[in-house]
């Protein structure tokens, strides 16, 4: 969240896009999921990717932190080329935090341990410092008192907030949210959205794949609509929702709004 990014790649400056996606193609076997997707994300920007299921939106953000590889095109994060065969995955993943639909907390560890594990064992930071930060993050996601609960003892919304804190513990520069409210009860969706909203307001760069249109309209700087592996239409929320031009966007919006 700080402006200083001491270990960013030489040649990259904060006025360039933080994440730059250029003509990305991705296939699973014969199935082409991304057919030439390009978009830029600037620092402190919040972008939402919406679209029907199977349109490739989750795949796209999974490619950004190299959970999926790409066949063609280029993705850079602060100047790091993700598609480089000699990619330093540690350097990339220090910059990119990811939160999943199914939370994916480690069920054998308490909430605070989940948050502390990666900084301790991956970044090898001193325990005291990590612990302080972890308690701070748990407080930030409003789960004070739940530090020593196991994921199984927490509600879906609470687990998802622990997952957000766990990701933030790595002090990423950009956060990817992959349909993070899709598996939640309606009443707990809000608490997770509030957490993300606070993050965005603090200036965190956020990429959300979401079906929460109200949230996207309110918070996003830019909305991208994907269908069948391409970006069909994009724009700032005001114009995107009111004067969508492409028939596919119109149809999708009419179904979902």
């Amino acid at each position, binding site marked *: 969240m700080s402006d200083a990014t001491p270990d960013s790649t030489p040649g990259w400056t904060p006025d360039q896009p933080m994440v730059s996606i250029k003509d990305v193609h991705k296939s699973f076997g014969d199935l082409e999921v991304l057919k030439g997707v390009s978009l830029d994300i600037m620092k402190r920007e919040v972008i939402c990717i919406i679209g029907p299921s199977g349109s490739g939106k989750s795949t796209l953000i999974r490619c950004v*932190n190299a*959970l999926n590889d790409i066949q063609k095109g280029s993705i850079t994060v602060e100047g790091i080329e993700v598609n480089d065969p000699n990619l330093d*995955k*540690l350097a990339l*993943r*220090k910059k*990119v*935090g*990811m939160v*999943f639909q*199914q939370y*994916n*907390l*480690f*069920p*054998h560890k308490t909430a605070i341990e989940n948050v502390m*594990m*990666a900084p301790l*064992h*991956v970044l090898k930071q001193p325990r005291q410092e990590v612990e302080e930060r972890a308690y701070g993050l748990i407080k930030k996601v409003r789960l004070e008192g739940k530090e020593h609960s*196991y994921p*199984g003892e927490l509600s879906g919304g609470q687990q998802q907030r622990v*997952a957000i804190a*766990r*990701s933030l513990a*790595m002090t990423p520069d950009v956060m990817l949210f992959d349909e993070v409210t899709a598996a939640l009860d309606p009443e707990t969706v809000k608490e997770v959205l509030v957490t993300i909203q606070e993050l965005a307001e603090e200036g965190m760069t956020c990429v959300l794949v979401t079906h929460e249109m109200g949230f996207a309209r309110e918070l996003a700087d830019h909305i991208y609509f994907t269908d069948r592996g391409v970006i069909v239409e994009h724009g700032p929320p005001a114009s995107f929702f009111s004067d969508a031009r492409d028939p596919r966007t119109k149809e999708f919006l009419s179904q979902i709004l």
Partner: protein
Amino acid sequence: MPGAELPVLLPPAPPARAQGDARFGLKARHGLYIAVLFALATGAAQAASDAGLPGPFETLLKWVPFVLKGFGLNLVISFFAMLFGTIAGAALGLMQISLLAPVRSGSWLVTQFFRNSPWLVLLFAIMLLFPFELDFGFVVVPVPDWMKAVIGFSLPIMANISEVVRGAVQSLPSGQWESAESLAFTRGQTLRMVILPQCIKRMIPPWINWYCILAMATPLASIMGVEESVTYTAQALNAEGDRPELIWPFYLFLLLIFFAYTYPIARWSIRLERKFLVKT
């Protein structure tokens, strides 16, 4: 429409148990059946015994320490076979999930070979192929038959534990791997800190199960002349001379010993399994 039967949707059949998870279904009443049979057989033997000879129960009592001594060797064989089988099986199981295709397929082949070979065949092969002593140049270590039996039994245990490990690792949701990866854990760290700790719980019940199966299988070694409880029981019967009425009481008694040993273990395993099911 009187008498017309409306079609109903029947409840789904209970899911078939996964392979390698054949529960050791011992129940307390099984012990009772054996005990009743034992009492009946002893009574019948009493009636069939020639007058003047000591009664069957008395005779059995005389041989109990001898049979128990043999049973001790069954336990020793089962302990060591489990120990070696577990160590080798854990390694083989981890090789089965290696990222290197040759390691993966090689360990799969070894696993399948030993898992699907009859235990007795493996035992015979080891007994006959393994040297009776190992010459290390500076020291010659004798290998008694019971040690060969240990090796013979640890092979199928190894293969089955290998499958338990592989199955447990693969049963975890892939999200665990992905979230660890997104937090920049290496594969080794992910295995060590995220995957295996969760697998241990899942592996303990089948592991205990395999121990029970192994303990029950150790009498196979008697065929190869290892002096364990079945061999000793046969020797005791021989020593009593021509008294066929003793056969039932003696072997049923031996069965009771095995039951008394494995039943509590099987119960404990089921309890653990329930406990692990509730809390994750």
